[in-house]
């Protein structure tokens, strides 16, 4: 099986000749449930919404949403596989958005400086999260709720102090607008390309590099991982910094797209990213999951989120579908995980039984 090489490739998960043996192996992978979920959701909206859903505009609609959430969901997923949660992303996004808007918009300094400062904000919040989690032993859920509120308050206070307002506009130079805030073909956000880049990096980290083994071990059992010689403290801080960086990146992108930044906003990313990750087959308590799964979960989430507008249904029902989908996904993922655990070697007829 070529699970390692095809990480990050959405099509790869379903490609090739599906002999029964290969199908069996496929069903035992962490992303099996989310692949089936995605297919079901796709078919549902093609039937319910019709031609428009499969038009370029239809694709752009959910791809744009998926790309923004997806960039955050990937590192959040890695953290979750390592047994940690990060809620602080919800305030890092507006904080970094405002940082770039204040530096490059309000003060008119170069965009490169504003962007670098915004990304540094994300890295710094991530470092603080990881540091406190390591030192205090307090669950990361609590620690990152704390930093989320702290960052939110700081953002509001500093924004009012520096600009006298809770929102700031920024007009990026054409180069930065092109690489961070452009709409390709008038509808596809350039963020989609960046998302692809983040998928490759996360896929490499988790499935190809030895660090991936450390992440799984950390999520499986922290103490044993440390006894095995894994630098668990450094790894934890690094993963939190990665999610801080990704959240800051999304914040910068938003500032470039909308050409303004507000103190509020970003909170929806907290639960949405966690939902994408869980729909993608990552175990909430850590130790199990995959990057293709997270990507599939993100696409599924975005499709439901946007697809409802293409149908004749009341858009308010979208949340009902997402809620039901989440429950269904967790139930299904439990089943597939049980199958993965019971997977004994096949093919040899009359062969060994456990």
């Amino acid at each position, binding site marked *: 099986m070529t699970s390692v090489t095809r990480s990050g490739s959405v099509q790869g998960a379903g490609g090739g000749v599906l002999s029964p043996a290969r199908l069996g192996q496929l069903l035992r992978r962490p992303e099996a449930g989310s692949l089936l979920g995605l297919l079901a959701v796709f078919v549902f909206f093609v039937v319910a919404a019709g031609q428009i859903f499969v038009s370029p505009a239809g694709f752009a609609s959910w791809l744009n949403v998926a790309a923004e959430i997806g960039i955050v969901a990937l590192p959040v997923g890695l953290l979750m596989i390592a047994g940690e949660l990060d809620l602080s992303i919800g305030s890092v996004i507006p904080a970094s958005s405002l940082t770039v808007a204040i530096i490059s918009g309000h003060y008119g300094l170069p965009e490169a400086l504003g962007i670098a400062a915004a990304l540094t904000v994300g890295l710094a919040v991530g470092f603080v999260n990881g540091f406190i989690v390591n030192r205090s032993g307090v669950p990361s859920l609590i620690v990152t709720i704390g930093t989320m509120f702290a960052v939110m308050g700081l953002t509001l206070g500093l924004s009012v102090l520096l600009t006298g307002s809770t929102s700031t506009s920024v007009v990026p130079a054409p180069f930065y607008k092109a690489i961070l805030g452009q709409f390709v073909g008038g509808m596809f956000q350039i963020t989609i390309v960046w998302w692809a880049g983040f998928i490759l990096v996360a896929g490499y980290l988790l499935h190809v590099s*030895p660090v991936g083994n450390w992440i799984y071990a950390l999520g499986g059992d922290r103490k044993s991982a440390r*006894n095995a010689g894994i630098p668990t403290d450094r790894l934890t801080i690094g993963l939190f910094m990665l999610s801080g960086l990704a959240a800051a990146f999304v914040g910068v992108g938003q500032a470039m797209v909308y050409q303004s930044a507000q103190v509020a906003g970003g909170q929806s990313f907290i639960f949405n990213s966690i939902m994408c990750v869980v729909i993608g087959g990552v175990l909430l308590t850590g130790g199990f999951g995959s990057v293709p799964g997270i990507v599939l979960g993100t696409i599924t989430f975005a499709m439901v989120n946007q697809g409802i507008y293409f149908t004749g249904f009341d858009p308010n029902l979208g949340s009902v579908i997402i809620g039901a989908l989440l429950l269904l996904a967790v139930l299904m993922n439990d089943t597939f995980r049980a199958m993965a655990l019971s997977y004994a070697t096949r093919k040899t007829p009359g062969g*060994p039984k456990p």
Partner: protein
Amino acid sequence: MTHPVLELRNVSKSFGPIDVLHDISLKVNAGEVLCLLGDNGAGKSTLIMTLAGVHKPTTGEIFMDGEGIRFDRPKDAADRGIATVHQFGGTFPLMSIGRSFFVGVEPVRKFGPLRIFDRKTANQTAVKAVQEFGITRIDDGDRLIGGLSGGERQALAIARAVHFGARVLILDEPTAALGVKQASHVLRIVLEAKKRGIAVIFITHQVTHAMAVGDHFAVLIRGALAANFMRGEKSREEITDLMAGGEALADLGAEIESRMGPHDGPPPQPAA
């Protein structure tokens, strides 16, 4: 005269005012199985953790190859080749055999500037190592640890320790949670490790299992060494009586033994 691989001289351990281990002297040679017997709360776990560098002895000394040593943390003991395998073997049920075998010491290939976890080598090495211990049913390194039987997990954990150069293997109740057949697999693996010249410390409260593989026996009662004898010097009944605290009532011994042996029936009913 060669030195024992590991030797304890007059080791005591107290936690505050509580004496958990009292004046323990023990040695284990290469290619020898030392069985450490004792009821729950006798201090077996504390003794293991002292050997594995988790606790430091309050008084007394530890020698390895005749040389006095001091473990400041578990890694020091691991670096000297002291490996502990716990009751449930693998601690990463959702990791594959190959991945968990190499946790922390991943085999790596280079691809340009990228470091690549060599999954194929990891799987092959892990499967080969465990098959050499006679567990031929494990033939796919992609299987998850959680899907293995208790005995297979023990075998894998022992094979891993030996593969990474363990000289002293501490097995903490490896057969306690296993059925009769699985337990006999594990006992065979203990003998295989012994044959390879590894010093094995086998902790158990199942006298039958101890007698099947032990060369040397030590019985702990309330933190003190109640008996220290070689294979064949004491009968099974005598050992059981010792573990029960020396109450040599034959019927009490028999009752305790029947409760301690593995069985498939319901737990004994309390007397009405």
